[in-house]
């Protein structure tokens, strides 16, 4: 079943990418082409095959010590240096809930 522009608008909201109406039309055509290209993979939804999520198969989650690592930790100044807006040693963001909240 083909994706509609309305479906793609919903995906764009979820992906946090504001698309113009023209972009939405183009993106819908692309999404349908791309999903059609993925069709061959559906034949592999086989019950007796174990999925491989990672090329190094026996790797499990690796946790490091919860400790400072001076060789690699960024200073506060360095961490803020690429931010679009910062104030008082923190990242500055607009209102999370909107102006009226």
């Amino acid at each position, binding site marked *: 079943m083909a*994706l509609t522009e309305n479906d*793609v608008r919903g*995906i*764009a*909201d*979820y*992906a*946090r*990418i*504001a*698309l113009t109406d023209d*972009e939405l039309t183009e*993106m819908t055509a*692309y*999404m349908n*082409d*791309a*999903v059609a*290209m*993925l*069709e*061959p*993979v*559906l*034949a*592999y*939804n*086989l019950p007796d*095959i*174990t*999925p*491989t*999520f*990672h*090329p*190094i198969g026996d*790797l499990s989650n*690796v946790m490091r010590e919860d400790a400072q690592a001076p060789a*690699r930790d*960024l200073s506060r100044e*360095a*961490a803020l*240096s*690429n*931010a*679009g*807006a910062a104030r008082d040693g923190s*990242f500055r*963001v*607009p*209102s*999370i*809930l*909107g*102006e009226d909240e």
Partner: protein
Amino acid sequence: MATSFDALTAAQLAAGVASGTWSAVEVAHAALDAIQAREAEVQAFVQVNPELALAAAERVDAARAAGEALPPLAGVPVAIKDNMNLTGTRTTCASRMLENYESPYTATCVQRMLDAGCVPVGKANMDEFAFGSSTDSSAFHPTNNPWDTARVPGGSSGGSAAAVAAGMVPLSLGSDTGGSIRQPAALCGVVGMKPTYGAVSRYGVVAFGSSLDQAGPFGRTVEDVALAMDALVAGGRDAYDSTSQEVAPSFAQAARAAAEGLAGRRIGLVPAFMDAEGLTPEVRAGVMRAAAALEAAGAELVEVDLPHVDAAIAAYYVIGPAEAFSNLARFDGIRYGYQEPGCTTLAQQSARSRAHGFGAEAKRRQMLGAYLLSSGVYDTYYYAAQKARTLITADYATAFAQVDAILMPATPHAAFRHGEISDPTQMYLSDMYTISLNIAGNGGISVPVGLGEDSGLPMAAQLVAPAFADERLITFATVIERGCAAASGEAVLGVAPAFAGKGGELA
């Protein structure tokens, strides 16, 4: 008598610096001159950093003057793909999103090259966030193929490949998520290696597909690529990348082992690959020249099958976009990256920063990934793709029980013209021969085999080895290089003729 900088390999430059024939500063100036003379036509770089290069070269010269033992690549200029952090440079991923992003630290793979004595001359152009096979999706400018500037260098590491092919640097680093080292190497007539996943640390390389990404080197000779591989793995496992593995620095040794011949070695050919629709006769003929070179050195050619590899492109375009969407979610316009001004809410700021910071293909991949990971769709596609991955990996294991390596094309055709492939899903087919290795994780190398009889453009063959047997790629590629070269032991193709000797000299 002056020597043209671009006629020298990394091995020769390092030997000249070590013996005092040239200083590292003289070599750095020659590289910067070579870049300046060629860059207007090639556009391989998004930044050139003369101060950084000369400072690194001065450190090499000071070490030599102090009588210190020089590292193996001391004074060798290197270009770095612009998705790799290097302190003192911006790391833009050729995206407006990161146009002003200053590297806060240095990637391990870059640091290893610096530790080996390399001199970083600049950051190489690429497809935006490595999404592409042409480098045309760079937000800043395209890169031109040095063999024909109307054509693309391939991608996504197109700047890294073109810089080496044009004689601007002898070595460069790239990254390969679906073919992004091997495909541009093939189209530009240089050697490009994607090591086994885990062989080279990914720390400090901007992530695209975390289970697929692998960094590796470009050079004009297999020996130079071997020297770069030794530099990349010599520091051992990187504690900053939990998938990093210990790999022995035995690549230069593997290049020398080619002299012993290949008696008793078996090389696989995949009939379905050699007869595939879309493979041009001249690429096929080039791969058969490589096969003849291997056979002449004593190897036996054996037919093998990889029956599930047909699913690789579809599996990749599930796994890759899904991982890309997860990774690129971090670009929210807050901590770094483009920030849309004048937004009243955080959600609006994120959506508009991402809409205006990312280019078209970066948006397409993330949209596809977002869809594939959405509820109801995830079970259908994502699990199927990861099961296809199991079967593709098993295919390679079965084949490698019969052969030491597999020989195949790197790309179906020679370099295409800018704009010639405009449909995104058609572009994805450029990686038909490279993509299954990123799925399975094992390593591959693209090695030049001369020019195509129809196009007159560079042709290449790809060798594939089992996981963590990458040194075999170097041995076999050296045999192909020597077998295909007019003068033995030298580059098959060398610098693209239009740029050879066009600036950058060593007295």
